[in-house]
């Protein structure tokens, strides 16, 4: 059973690689035939300072995604914890209501709409002046917090209830047990899903130009308009995204292996 599964996976991998290879080959052939486009792109990229924009865009994309994820994990963990607290008392019930509303709002509206709402409505009303990048970090954090809260809740519920009981039985408080015992195990269980969320965040950063933050898309769009040619810049942009995300996937795999050490049998 396992053997045939492995074999099937390998065949699928070969097919995908073949298709990708053919597509890449076709593109390269096309561009070599029409190499003016490549030259024009390289000219803008190198001589007219396009690479500065690209690096800046990369930096902004990375900052927004990483800080967004960090804020999201903190908010998500807090919300998830509130949602698993036993609800006999009034306070947990009120908090739970607030959290439901929060999650409902951020999952119920598109990221672009949230960005626009914050940048053009909420912050001006509150009289706060914030750069596009900072607003993006905030909104990405709040947004991913809503998604991560659900992921984290599933993670917490996947940890055996006996772990919490054992912690409480030796006299540790609910928050201490949660933080030291349950959440570390929950995080281990949800790491693949959390990685997915990070990848989504990175890709979603391509909408921050709506509030004037310069990300990768803005950089390549500028290069395109300066060279009157969009084919190569957008192709390169797509490749950069793919490479970033492959690296992250690899990183998550390594982390998972590191965290698995408490499952090993020797």
């Amino acid at each position, binding site marked *: 059973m396992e053997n045939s599964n492995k074999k099937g996976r390998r065949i699928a991998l070969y097919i995908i690689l073949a298709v990708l290879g053919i597509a890449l080959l076709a593109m390269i052939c096309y561009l070599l035939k029409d190499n003016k486009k490549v030259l024009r792109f390289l000219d803008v990229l190198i001589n007219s300072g396009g690479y500065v924009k690209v690096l800046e865009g990369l930096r902004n994309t990375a900052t927004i995604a990483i800080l967004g994820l960090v804020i999201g994990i903190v908010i998500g963990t807090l919300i998830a914890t509130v949602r698993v607290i036993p609800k006999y008392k009034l306070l947990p019930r009120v908090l739970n209501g607030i959290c439901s509303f929060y999650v409902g709002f951020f999952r119920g509206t598109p990221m672009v709409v949230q960005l626009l709402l914050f940048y053009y409505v909420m912050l001006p009303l509150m009289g706060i002046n914030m750069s596009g990048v900072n607003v993006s970090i905030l909104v990405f954090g709040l947004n991913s917090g809503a998604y991560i809260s659900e992921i984290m809740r599933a993670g917490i519920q996947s940890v055996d209830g*006996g772990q919490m*009981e*054992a912690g409480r039985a*030796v*006299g540790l*408080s609910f928050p201490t047990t949660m933080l030291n015992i349950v959440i570390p195990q929950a995080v281990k269980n949800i790491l693949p899903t959390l990685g997915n969320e990070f990848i989504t965040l990175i890709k979603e950063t391509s909408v921050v130009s709506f509030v004037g933050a310069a990300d990768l898309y803005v950089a390549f769009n500028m290069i395109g308009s300066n060279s009157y040619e969009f084919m190569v810049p957008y192709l390169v942009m797509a490749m950069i995204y793919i490479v970033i995300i492959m690296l992250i996937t690899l990183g998550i795999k390594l982390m998972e292996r590191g965290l698995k050490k*408490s499952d*090993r049998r020797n």
Partner: protein
Amino acid sequence: MIDVIDLKKSFGSLEVLKGINVTINKGDIVCVIGPSGSGKSTFLRCLNCMEDPTGGQIIFHNVNIADMKVDINIHRRKMGMVFQQFNLFNNKTVIQNIMLAPVKIGVSDLRRAKRHNFFLPLTNLLRGKDKKQAKIEITATEQQIKAEAREKALSLLRRIGLEDKADVYPSTLSGGQKQRVAIVRALAMNPEVMLFDEPTSALDPEMVGEVLDLMKELANEGMTMVVVTHEMGFAREVGSRILFMDGGYILEENAPAEFFANPQHPRTREFLSKVL
């Protein structure tokens, strides 16, 4: 030490405990037996409020710990608990499992004491003349607390012959080893009473002996124990009192020799004829 007065517990409309009255004295080894569904595990879990009782009182050191206003965490430190499914912390090594509670609780008490002392001049200013509070004496630093907990954990592991397993994760231990670690984890807090919830029911028959031996040792040292068990041999040999429960009541309570030789209640007789 523990007085249980008219203890009641319902899950929704299902009434599991219908009024339990029992006194557990210092040094008692109380074995609770009975058919499944009789409420014996629920009774044990109510003793340290793992399940909040729906009625009645549990008096531990003159405090009714069934009262929701009581800070239960402080009282639970003095009541060790051992579970059927071991429940070792999977993300911690064996020694961390044992050290965790003493270190966390020691350090948080230390910090609270420091905070108290720091704000004392200010808070005393607001208190009436005869209500002034004294400084809490600080006897150890955080490092000392940690070192002490480590020392204690190692000596506990030595006692059960598992010092070489100190730095492995629980997933590598056998069931019997896990349960023995779970027992010393509870001992690390120097409890006054140990609660055992069917400690050998999830073990291979081969490993039951090592766990029971450790429990016997504890009993001989004079530890107060409440043991929910199906091991009649253990109950007869080690127990100082047997409680027989069925249908949410304690039907019979007696010394083991008398209990097994001469059961009074018809339900007890029926149960014993099936299990012995």
